[in-house]
C-alpha cells in the first residue's frame, strides 16, 4: 500500500482558538508547522463565543489570579485539577495582553486599558462579591480572536491545509505518536502527515445530542481518533446544558424570556414549575428548571408528536412588549420553531452547550495515560481535559483555556522537537492501514444503514437517556441502546461514492467519531452514581450527608473510558496547586 507522506516538525489538527494559538508559538519559533482544518480557520466554532475571556487584570477594581482560581475550582465542583487551574489563572493576564498586542480589538476604558465586565461565577476575595474580570470585543470576542490569531499565523508562515479532514492518529509499536492520516476533501486523496509532535485542537462533540448549540462541524473528531488509537477519554459524563433551546434546532432562547413573564407548560397546559418551585416558579435557577422540564417529559407530559419537549408560553404578554423587549426571540421562534410566540408557545428543550471532558492532558498540554506522557502527542481546548473545568465550566473560561493551553502545548512541543532526532523515524504502517481500511469499508458497504438514520438514533438516545438530568434506569437502558446504535454506525452506507467534496462520506466519517464520544458519555455517566456539577442524577439527591448529591468519599476522582471493551478506570483529582495551598473541599453554593 502506498500512501503519500508529508513531513513537518509539528502538525496541528483544528484551526480554532487553541490550534491557532499553538501554531503561532511553533511557527514563530521557526518550526515547520502544518495546521489541518475542515473549514476555513476563521469559520471555526470559536467564532460563536460572545461573552469574553477572563483575566484578573484588575483594570476596573482590585482582582487577583488566586481569587479567579478559587472561583474556577468551586465552579468545577472540586473535580478540576488545582495545578492546571492555578496555571491557567496565573497565565490569564499574560495571554490576554499578548492577544492585545496581536491586534485584538478589546473594548476599552476611557484611560485606554481593557474594559472588563462581570460574568456569572467570577467573584472577588474568594467568593465574596461579583468582580469585573471578563474582557470582550463587543459581542464578537471569539470572532475577533480568530481573526487576530489567523493574521498573525499567516505572517509567521504557518502552513494551512484547509478543507482537510484528519482520519486517524498514527502511533508506532511503542505507542509514540508519529502524526495523522488525513483526507483532502477536494480529491478524497489520503495522506500521512508525519511530524515530531502532533496536537489535537479539534473542539467539542456537542452534536452527539439531539439538541445542541454547537455548529454542525463539532463532531468530536479528535476524540474519536484518540479513542481508536487506544487513548482513554476523561470525564466525558460532564456536559454543560442550557435549559431552553428551540426543540429540534438548538438555538438558545435567553433566560430573559422567563424574566419578562414567560411560563413553561406541559402537554396538559399546566404551569408545572409551580409544583417544583412554588415560590420562584419559572424564575427558579437553571438546574431546577432543567430538571423539572426533563421530569415532565419522562413522566409522559411532553408535547409534540414525540412528546419530547415542553412549551414556553408568552402569548399572555402584550404583543407590544414582545415586539419591543424580545424582538430577537420572536424572530428565532418564527424562524426555527415555525411559531409566532405572540400567537402560540415556543417548543423548548434543555440544550447541550459545552463538553468539560476530553483527552487527558497535564497543564503543559501533554497527553497523559497511566501517569505516563504519550510521546509526541498533545491536546488543547475543548477536546482536551487538563482538567480546568472539572464538573462544570465558568463562563469566559473556555476562551481562556484556548489561549493558555494552546500556548503551553505549543511551548511543550517546541521543547520536545528540540530534543527529537533530526530525521523522522520510519513510519509505522499498522494505523495507516487501519485508517485506509475504514474508508474502504465505507466505500464498499452494501445493504447498510443510512448515515442520517444512525445519527438521529444516536442523538435521540443521548438526549433521552443522558441529558441534563439523569435517571438510573434510563442510563442503564441507554447503555444498551447506544451499543445498538454503534452496530448501525459500523454498517453505514453512502450512495454517493464520488471523489470530490463528498459531503456524504465526510458525514459518515464524522459519525464514526461522534459514536465514540456518545458511548464514552453514556457509559461514564451510568457508572458515576453521585451528582456533581453538570452531572445530576435523580438517585443522588441533595441530602445532609451529601449536599447537592455529591459523594466525595467515593467519587472525588476522574473517569477514564477506554474504547477497548468499554472499560472504565479512575484517577485521582490533583488537589495540590503549584504554589499555593489546596482550595479545600466544601459545598458548592452560590
Amino acid at each position, binding site marked *: 500500500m502506498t500512501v503519500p507522506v508529508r513531513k513537518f516538525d509539528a502538525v496541528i489538527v483544528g484551526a480554532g482558538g487553541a490550534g491557532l494559538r499553538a501554531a503561532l508559538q511553533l511557527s514563530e519559533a521557526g518550526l515547520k508547522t502544518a495546521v489541518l482544518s475542515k*473549514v476555513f480557520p476563521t469559520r471555526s466554532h470559536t467564532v460563536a463565543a460572545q461573552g469574553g475571556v477572563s483575566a484578573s487584570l484588575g483594570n476596573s477594581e482590585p482582582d487577583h489570579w488566586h481569587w479567579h482560581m478559587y472561583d474556577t475550582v468551586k465552579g468545577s465542583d472540586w473535580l478540576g485539577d488545582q495545578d492546571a487551574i492555578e496555571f491557567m489563572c496565573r497565565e490569564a493576564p499574560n495571554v490576554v495582553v499578548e492577544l492585545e498586542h496581536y491586534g485584538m480589538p478589546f473594548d476599552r476604558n476611557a484611560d485606554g486599558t481593557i474594559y472588563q465586565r462581570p460574568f456569572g461565577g467570577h467573584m472577588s476575595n474568594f467568593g465574596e462579591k461579583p468582580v469585573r474580570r471578563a474582557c470582550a470585543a463587543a459581542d*464578537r470576542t471569539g470572532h475577533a480572536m480568530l481573526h487576530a490569531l489567523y493574521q498573525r499565523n499567516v505572517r509567521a508562515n504557518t502552513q494551512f491545509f484547509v478543507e482537510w479532514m484528519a482520519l486517524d492518529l498514527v502511533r508506532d509499536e511503542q505507542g509514540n505518536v508519529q502524526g495523522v492520516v488525513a483526507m483532502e476533501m477536494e480529491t478524497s486523496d489520503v495522506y500521512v502527515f508525519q511530524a515530531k509532535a502532533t496536537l489535537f485542537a479539534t473542539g467539542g462533540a456537542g452534536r452527539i445530542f439531539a439538541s445542541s448549540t454547537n455548529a454542525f462541524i463539532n463532531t468530536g473528531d479528535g476524540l474519536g481518533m484518540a479513542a481508536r488509537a487506544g487513548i482513554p477519554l476523561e470525564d466525558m459524563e460532564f456536559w454543560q446544558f442550557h435549559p431552553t433551546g428551540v426543540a429540534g434546532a438548538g438555538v438558545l432562547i435567553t433566560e430573559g424570556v422567563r424574566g419578562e413573564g414567560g411560563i413553561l407548560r406541559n402537554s396538559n397546559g399546566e404551569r408545572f414549575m409551580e409544583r417544583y418551585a412554588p415560590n420562584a416558579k419559572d424564575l427558579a435557577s437553571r438546574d431546577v428548571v432543567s430538571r423539572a422540564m426533563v421530569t415532565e417529559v419522562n413522566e409522559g407530559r411532553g408535547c409534540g408528536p414525540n412528546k419530547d419537549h415542553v412549551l414556553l408560553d408568552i402569548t399572555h404578554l402584550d404583543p407590544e412588549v414582545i415586539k419591543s423587549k424580545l424582538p430577537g426571540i420572536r424572530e428565532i421562534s418564527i424562524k426555527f420553531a415555525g411559531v409566532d410566540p405572540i400567537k402560540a408557545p415556543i417548543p423548548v428543550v434543555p440544550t447541550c452547550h459545552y463538553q468539560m471532558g476530553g483527552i487527558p492532558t497535564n497543564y503543559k498540554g501533554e497527553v497523559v495515560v497511566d501517569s505516563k506522557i504519550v510521546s509526541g502527542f498533545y491536546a488543547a481546548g475543548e477536546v482536551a481535559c487538563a482538567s480546568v473545568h472539572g464538573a462544570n465550566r465558568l463562563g469566559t473560561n473556555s476562551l481562556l483555556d484556548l489561549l493558555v493551553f494552546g500556548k503551553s502545548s505549543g511551548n511543550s512541543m517546541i521543547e520536545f522537537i528540540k530534543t527529537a532526532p533530526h530525521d523522522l523515524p520510519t513510519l509505522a504502517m499498522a494505523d495507516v492501514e487501519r485508517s485506509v481500511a475504514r474508508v474502504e469499508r465505507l466505500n464498499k458497504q452494501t445493504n447498510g444503514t443510512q448515515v442520517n438514520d444512525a445519527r438521529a438514533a444516536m442523538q435521540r438516545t443521548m438526549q433521552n437517556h443522558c441529558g441534563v438530568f439523569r435517571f438510573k434506569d434510563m442510563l442503564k437502558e441507554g447503555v444498551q441502546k447506544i451499543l445498538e446504535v454503534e452496530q448501525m454506525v459500523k454498517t453505514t452506507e453512502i450512495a454517493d461514492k*464520488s471523489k470530490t467534496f463528498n459531503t456524504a462520506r465526510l458525514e459518515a466519517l464524522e459519525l464514526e467519531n461522534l459514536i465514540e464520544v456518545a458511548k464514552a458519555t453514556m457509559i461514564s455517566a451510568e457508572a458515576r452514581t453521585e451528582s456533581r456539577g453538570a452531572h445530576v442524577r435523580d438517585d443522588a439527591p441533595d441530602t445532609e450527608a451529601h449536599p447537592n448529591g455529591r459523594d466525595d468519599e467515593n467519587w472525588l476522582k476522574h473517569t477514564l473510558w477506554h474504547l477497548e471493551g468499554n472499560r472504565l478506570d479512575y484517577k485521582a483529582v490533583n488537589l495540590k496547586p503549584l504554589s499555593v495551598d489546596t482550595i479545600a473541599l466544601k459545598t458548592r453554593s452560590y
Partner: protein
Amino acid sequence: MPNVPDVNNMIDEVELKRILWRSRRGLLELDLQLERFVNGAFQGLSAAELEDYRRLLLLPDQDFLEYLNGKAECPDVTLRAIIERIQAEQR
C-alpha cells in the same frame, strides 16, 4: 417559452460541491438557515446567482448572520438579492 438550461451543469461540478461543503459554518444559526437553502431554492439557482452565493460564503460568519437576520444591510449591494433568496427560504 425558451428552454431554460440546467445551469447547475454549466458550473464546474467540483465548484458546486465545494460550495455545498462551504455552507457548513462556525455558527449553528447559519448552518440551520443554509441547510434549508441548499435543500431548497439552491437547486434552481442560475449560474449568476450561484456565483453570488459563492461570494457570499466568503463573508465572515458574524457579518453573514447579521445580514441574514436583517440586523444590518450587506454593504456589497450585488449580494443583497441572494441574501433575500436565502431569507425567503426561512419563512
